[in-house]
């Protein structure tokens, strides 16, 4: 049962990962591996996680964001987040994580 996939594009210094389907503990592992492999190869200045086509997400998605934030910091780059689902945004705020990945400013920020 593979319900999740990720499409990755590189344009100049921006690596965009469009997440598609359901993000849970089961699917997060493969997504993480694909993104990290592409980022390791491209070493982009910015990594964008686009949640537009995500149909379900639990806190595994937040773990995914936190892990990619740490990875981009190690690469000296920054993490951008677009189209975070409303109910997960609520949970990230509850944990004070909007400081880590500012998801308020028009959907994209550091």
């Amino acid at each position, binding site marked *: 049962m593979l319900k999740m996939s990720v499409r990755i594009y590189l344009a100049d210094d921006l690596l965009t990962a469009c997440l598609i389907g359901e993000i849970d503990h089961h699917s997060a592992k493969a997504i993480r591996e694909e993104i990290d492999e592409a980022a390791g190869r491209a070493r982009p200045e910015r990594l964008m996680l686009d949640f537009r086509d995500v149909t*379900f997400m639990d806190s595994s998605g937040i773990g995914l964001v936190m892990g990619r934030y740490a990875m981009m910091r190690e690469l000296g780059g920054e993490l951008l987040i677009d189209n975070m689902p409303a*109910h997960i945004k609520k*949970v990230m705020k509850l*944990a004070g994580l909007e400081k880590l990945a500012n998801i308020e400013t028009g959907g994209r920020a550091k």
Partner: protein
Amino acid sequence: MKMLNQMKLTFMSKSNNEAFSRTAVAAFMSQLDPTVDELTDLKTAVSEAVTNCIVHGYPDSIGMVYITAAIYPDSRIVVTIKDKGCGIDDIGRAMEPLYTSCPDGERAGLGFAVMQSLCDKVRVRSAPGKGTSVSLTRMVRLRGQDDGKGAE
């Protein structure tokens, strides 16, 4: 209060059962005619609890996960997710937001925080070496009934 309906689900602690189990609970909940938000909230909370059984309850083995869901006349659903795994030593600490026993940085440590924010009541019972049981209670607002409080 006497329950109106009940279902039980037992499955192996394999991660591809996370999607199966939350979808099954959502299908059972649908007889309460919930909104999409109410359905998503409970699905997310169940996904957190089942993931805990798989990742923490049975860290090095495959065991069984037991779900019971019951619907009550006051438009309430109670879902209990149980494992017979290693149990939790310190429930208070396990429930702290951002606390995680996984050091790899890929688990957010927000499972219980998510459950608490998306449910009306979360009850955790655990005995080290014997297992853990998490009960999630969620009210579903009756259509056309506005108590001014909303569903969340």
